[in-house]
């Protein structure tokens, strides 16, 4: 664990926004490293798992275990627009399900999938925390509240035309 000299490291380090080598000794940095990797790549490529494993000295299998445990991490790239549908209690009792149905109809994908054109990914989240606006969805950083199914078409259209 002295010198890190993987071929991948040489080529790809520029993409990785943090200096891994200074991080390797800090306690419990694995989740932070994975978050940074995902920030840089949009997901966690397999080669990055091996690379991090080499640097911090944790077996790749254990790292894979951590990745799959937390819902934030993904092993595949995402669409250009990530639609998060809130499944919180307030949204649930305010018919959030119908919004999900409308989204699925409009996009032709289910939760966890990405459209073939790579434009939209549909995710469900436990709660976006703006319950007074229920039902709510988020498209990238933009929040849409007090929704009714009829509004979905227009929202999606807006992003398709961007």
């Amino acid at each position: 664990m002295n010198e890190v000299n993987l071929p991948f490291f040489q080529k790809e380090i520029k993409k990785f926004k943090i200096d891994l080598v200074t991080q390797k000794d800090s306690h419990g940095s694995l989740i932070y490293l994975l978050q940074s990797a995902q920030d840089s790549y949009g997901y966690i490529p397999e080669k990055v798992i091996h690379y991090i494993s080499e640097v911090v000295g944790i077996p790749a299998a254990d790292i894979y275990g951590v990745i799959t445990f937390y819902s934030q991490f993904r092993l595949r790239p995402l669409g250009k627009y990530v639609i998060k549908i809130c499944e919180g209690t307030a949204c649930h009792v305010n018919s959030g399900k119908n919004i999900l149905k409308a989204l699925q109809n409009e996009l032709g994908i289910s939760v966890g999938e990405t459209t073939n054109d790579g434009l939209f990914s549909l995710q469900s989240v436990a709660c976006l925390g703006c319950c007074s606006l229920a039902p709510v969805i988020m498209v990238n950083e933009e929040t849409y509240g007090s929704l009714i199914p009829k509004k979905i078409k227009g929202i999606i259209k807006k992003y398709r035309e961007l």
Partner: protein
Amino acid sequence: MKEIRVGLGTCGVSAGGIQVFNTLKSEIDAKKLKVVLKETGCMGMCYEEVLVEVVENGTSFLYAKINPEKAKKIIDQHIIDDRPIEEWIVNNRACSEKEEFFKKQKRIVLRNCGVIDPGSIDEYITRDGYKAIQKVLKELSPEEIIDIIYQSGLRGRGGGGFLTGLKWRFARNAKGEKKYIICNADEGDPGAFMDRSVLEGDPHSVLEGMMIAGRAIGADEAYIYIRAEYPKAILRLENAIKQCAERGYLGTGIFGSDANFKIKIKEGAGAFVCGEETALIASIEGKRGIPRIRPPFPAQKGLWGMPTNINNVETYANIPWIILNGAESFSSMGTEQSKGTKVFALAGKIVRSGLAEVPMGMTINEVVFDVGGGIKDDRKFKAVQMGGPSGGCIPASMGDLKIDYDEITQTGAIMGSGGLIVLDETTCMVDLAKFFLNFTQNESCGKCTFCRIGTKRMLEILDRITMGEGKEEDLDLLESLAYKIKDSSLCGLGQTAPNPVLTTLKYFREEYEAHIRDKKCPAHICPALITYKISAEKCTGCTLCAKKCPVQAISGEVKKPHLINQNECIKCGLCYDACSFGAVEKI
């Protein structure tokens, strides 16, 4: 000079607060006006966002539901011409909204939320900020701090309700070469947003509470474990920590004393179970967030094996106030066993959804009707759901119940972290129980068999009940499974996961029975148990429903009432959504 405040908590931003803020800013710049424009956190009236408050000589004009156009008009009329726009002002209405909402509240934790600019340490300081930590460093021994907190009767606001003073004493007495303070900001309950609002609106109060805790137990290092889904709160915390470091409030020799203290932020990666303290510690250590057996408790062996004190955001935010105002003024509020106040996130079918802080001992009815303004659309109050997925439903008939840790626990629900979802007659209790169980089932870490598989089996049973395939013996089976899961799970997640099912079974058993025996969902929520029918009187024969129907189950001639063929109908509800005349009915 006039001061304009714009509420830019997540709720305000979601409602379009940034655009309003930018409009105000460009108007002020363009017209070279002498006013102070600042952003604040959430003042709790989320249902009226975007909120813009104009303050002059201590008089406040609170404008609700403002958009960029209205913002321009506020500048022209109120700021320039000095004519407040009466019809948009909430605290000026006949039955003042603002007064109604705040009258029964007692704001300790939320004392600065919506009042100060959370990005400014100076504003926090002018509101007695960082006085408590200085008092503690100069005048009090660690034991004395712990005594004050103990005597105040403050109990952990994260859900467990353990006496904070006692927890601190355990950590103080534990032996270890290093000790840690952790702030649990992994607010994962769906429908709860108290901690987020405090962190967004008043981050310094939490930092100060942590510093005091650090002094009390002898810790010089602290972590805030916060959900990555709260980007704004993280930003505010980072900024607050930076400001403290610059002023010497954090670092070595804080406030010129011999004490050292540093605070780091750890972002969670999305796992509900990490709200459990041992799982949270594992997550900070970079591992899978799986709980472990207690004892040893974190107070003895916590982070990296060292004595660790964990409290949640709201608990820490109470601390500076208690130190400055004394244990007695805190314990004078509330009931025998539950002191002080509690912040609730009011949501669901309630008129004023938002954040409210009320003294312990207030009844549920008072919270729902007096603070929350009652039920939306004049529907009937059915129940409140407290404590999120670990809690339960308390029926409207028990509305006189006092908000008190022990009284609520007796109903089968829990105080929890403070999510309070109001339900009306259009909520199906079986569906709601299924919703929560689905959540905990997804979030179970998988360590304990009963939690992992038991909740799955319970969910399957609930699924078939809502599909109209429930059996008479299912209810007994649900109960028996529920108690086994409670008994054989290691951590709070499994031990409380069956609560939503148990409480709905206890108070709304007849609804389950209606699903099983009559194959009916009384609230018309469970799709499989709804029959769609077209009312011949209301139908205008516009043919829209027939066009929308994906299985051509609707027949009828133009301008004549249509009919749904029940054998063909797949109960998708598209006709119901499509009809503009309310002619499609659910029965």
